[in-house]
């Protein structure tokens, strides 16, 4: 078999056992890898109704057929689990050399079930004599407890005396079950969204160490090599210019100008301090170097350092961290934002969910619902630099108000009450990314319907809003189709797995990707076959959510978005009514071939082959 192993390593932490489960060819063809394969495995291995923080919730690391091929940007893996934030499908992508070690040691996926009795370091490595499959070792991780992610990785590598060991780990946030804890890997990269670090923490799995050997075979190595060279060349052209020069930080000044930069908990959509935290200024005054993901030619990562007299801090900066810990919290000091992002990475928690949850709390302070005397809380006003850093530490330790905020803004608002849910900016429990939905109407739909919750990665619907395809400030009957197509496109991208920043380097994404898939696996694949795979994957995600209790009313946006109009100059008076959103959602369900209630008809299941593919999975829930 080329590009795949056709099997997954299943590790049971409760009983300290492991086994290899076969993954049939038809499943690999149907779900490709990465997010798609991970979705299938989650559906299969997660019992319906499982407690996200209980032993039954599997933590899945899924590789893809392109991993190990040396194609630019392809060293990525997906992390899947039922999300402790949403109770629905949880998935995250990360990009690092852990992906290649994962594929060398664990087959196409690693499925971790159960719950260790004591803090554990799971070490998976080949049999030195070469007689057996890679073996997991269950090692004591008590000495690692309390360490940040960077120190944890360092300590694990030192323990094995092997810098080539690749490590995924959690920090204090994951240990303490902060619901938006991330899994750090390979030098501070994060599988951040939807709380996989909390799932890992619930299993008392402090770290995973992988050390593989050998190579991954591809069907047509010479063709793949030639294609790789060509794609790498294209990846350095105009199609990735923004990412190479400023990285995603470039979004700040553009979004601000377009009235699309969420500010002070989405009260406003432009920020008077935007220039201070703009990508251009950070590049000029704080840039240390560009950094690359494993096997990536683009190098979008910007490593920044503080320049004030405070404690020196250095780390990667992306737009989402920048918006969430900057404008959304009213913070315009770039040094504070750099410190806050680095702190999140070390504590091991998602910067978006952390920033959005803190912004919610800041508004609660503004409205007098929280006070400095509440539960050891700092005076969390918008723009409070020291308070932001203090509360991040408290969240990681679940100390005082940090305990409440560790639950995410949805649960925190349910505890606090007093109408604070009206400004809890989440969808399905996942905090909103940095796209103002009222001034990006196609994206508003994408945020409302995407199975993961408020997510900018599984839907790239914003792309239409930043083009002449639509009027971003109004709604029309085309948005449903656009949003569905963007989800399917993302599903294929996230399953092969290519980096999103490469997307404009393809002349014809589906055609080219199908050729690459065949080149790697030796299996026939067509552009249309990939399109259908993308649709199939999104239907299975929805099916998972239906099984876990999804209701029509879960596809919505926060009350603030549907009740308040924007005031920023370029978009003054622009809002989004519930009727407009429902109109777009109806168009989306129609484009998907679903019922008016958003359910999947049996005919659609048959059309996509899902009924047959899921025949062996327990508790298969067809449409209701």
């Amino acid at each position: 078999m080329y590009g795949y192993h056709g099997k997954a390593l299943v590790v049971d932490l409760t009983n300290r056992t492991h086994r290899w489960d076969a993954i049939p060819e038809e499943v690999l063809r149907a779900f490709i890898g990465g997010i798609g394969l991970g979705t299938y495995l989650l559906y299969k291995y997660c019992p319906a109704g499982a407690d996200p923080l209980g032993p039954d919730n599997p933590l899945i690391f899924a590789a893809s057929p392109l991993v190990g091929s040396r194609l630019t940007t392809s060293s990525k893996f997906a992390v899947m689990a039922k999300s402790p934030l949403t109770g629905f499908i949880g998935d995250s992508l990360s990009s690092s050399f852990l992906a290649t070690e994962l594929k060398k040691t664990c087959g196409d996926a690693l499925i971790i079930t159960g719950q260790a009795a004591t803090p554990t370091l799971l070490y998976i490595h080949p049999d030195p004599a070469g007689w057996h499959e890679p073996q997991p070792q269950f090692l004591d991780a008590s000495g690692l407890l309390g360490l940040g992610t960077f120190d944890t990785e360092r300590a694990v590598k030192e323990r094995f005396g092997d810098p080539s060991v690749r490590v995924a780990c959690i920090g204090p946030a994951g240990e303490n079950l902060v619901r938006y804890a991330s899994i750090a890997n390979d030098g501070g990269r994060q599988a951040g969204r939807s709380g996989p670090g909390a799932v890992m923490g619930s299993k008392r799995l402090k770290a995973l160490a992988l050390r593989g050997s050998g190579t991954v075979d591809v069907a047509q190595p010479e063709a793949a090599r030639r294609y790789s060279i060509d794609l790498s060349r294209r990846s350095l052209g105009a199609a990735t210019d923004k990412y190479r020069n400023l990285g995603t930080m470039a979004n700040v000044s553009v979004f601000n100008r377009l009235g699309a930069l969420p500010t002070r908990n989405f009260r406003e959509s432009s920020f008077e301090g935007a220039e201070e935290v703009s990508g251009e200024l950070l590049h000029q005054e704080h840039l240390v170097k560009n950094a690359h993901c494993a096997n990536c030619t683009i190098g979008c990562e910007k490593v920044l350092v503080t320049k004030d007299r405070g404690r020196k801090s250095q780390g990667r900066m992306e737009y989402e961290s920048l918006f969430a810990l900057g404008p959304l919290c009213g913070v315009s000091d770039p040094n504070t934002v750099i410190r806050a992002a680095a702190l999140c990475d070390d504590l091991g928690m998602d910067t978006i969910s952390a920033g959005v949850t803190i912004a919610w709390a800041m508004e609660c302070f503004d409205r007098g619902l929280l006070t400095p005397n509440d539960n050891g809380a700092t005076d969390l006003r918008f723009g409070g630099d020291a308070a932001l850093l203090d509360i991040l530490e408290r969240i990681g330790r679940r100390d005082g108000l940090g305990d409440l905020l560790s639950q995410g803004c949805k649960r925190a608002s349910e505890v606090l009450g007093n109408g604070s849910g009206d400004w809890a900016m989440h969808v399905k429990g996942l905090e909103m990314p940095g796209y103002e939905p009222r001034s990006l109407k196609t994206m508003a739909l994408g945020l409302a319907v995407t199975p993961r919750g408020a997510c900018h990665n599984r839907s790239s619907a914003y792309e239409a809003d930043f083009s002449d395809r639509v009027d971003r400030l109004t709604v029309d009957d085309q948005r449903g189709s656009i949003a569905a197509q963007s989800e399917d496109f993302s599903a294929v991208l996230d399953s092969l797995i290519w980096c999103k920043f490469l997307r404009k380097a393809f002349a014809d994404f589906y055609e080219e990707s199908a050729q690459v898939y065949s080149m790697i696996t030796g299996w026939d694949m067509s552009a249309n076959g990939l399109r259908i795979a993308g649709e199939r994957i999104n239907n299975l995600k929805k099916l998972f959510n239906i099984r876990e209790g999804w209701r029509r009313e879960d596809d919505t946006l926060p009350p603030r978005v549907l009740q308040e109009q924007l005031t920023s100059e370029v978009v003054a008076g622009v809002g989004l009514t519930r009727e407009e959103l429902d109109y777009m959602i109806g168009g989306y369900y129609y484009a998907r071939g679903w019922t008016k209630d958003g359910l999947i008809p049996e005919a659609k299941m048959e059309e996509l082959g899902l009924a047959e593919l899921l025949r062996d999975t327990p508790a298969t829930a067809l449409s209701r």
Partner: protein
Amino acid sequence: MATLEGTNSCRGADGTSTTTGVASPNAPVTTVKPALGVMPACAGMTGRGAGISVKVELFGTARLATGKRSVEVSLPTNTSRRDFVCALAVACPQLVAHVIRPDLTDLLEGYLLNRGGRTFLTGDAISVAPGDSLLIISNQAGG
């Protein structure tokens, strides 16, 4: 590519720099009188009666290359995309090959033109009114 620490800046009609020293993204808007005859490819624009001053807002790579948040160019009310690009190239030669095609016929494929933060301009004809802003932004949205 020039960085913001560099001394590159948009040039005036005689080809001299209109600003000196360290360029900053917070630098004030610089009004530049376009010299249409400076670049041969733009010679056709000369004598069309350029009249309306239009603010061109720069972001990302364009801002890094010029060290400016915006520049002003003069354009006829009804102009063409090519004429606009020429006017911009004359005002900010640093943008050529980084944001503007080397043959000065259009922006590079990675860039979009937007009027007033509201309307993306894709056709050849561009109509401008006094007080208009034209934004040059990357087509690589999101991240």
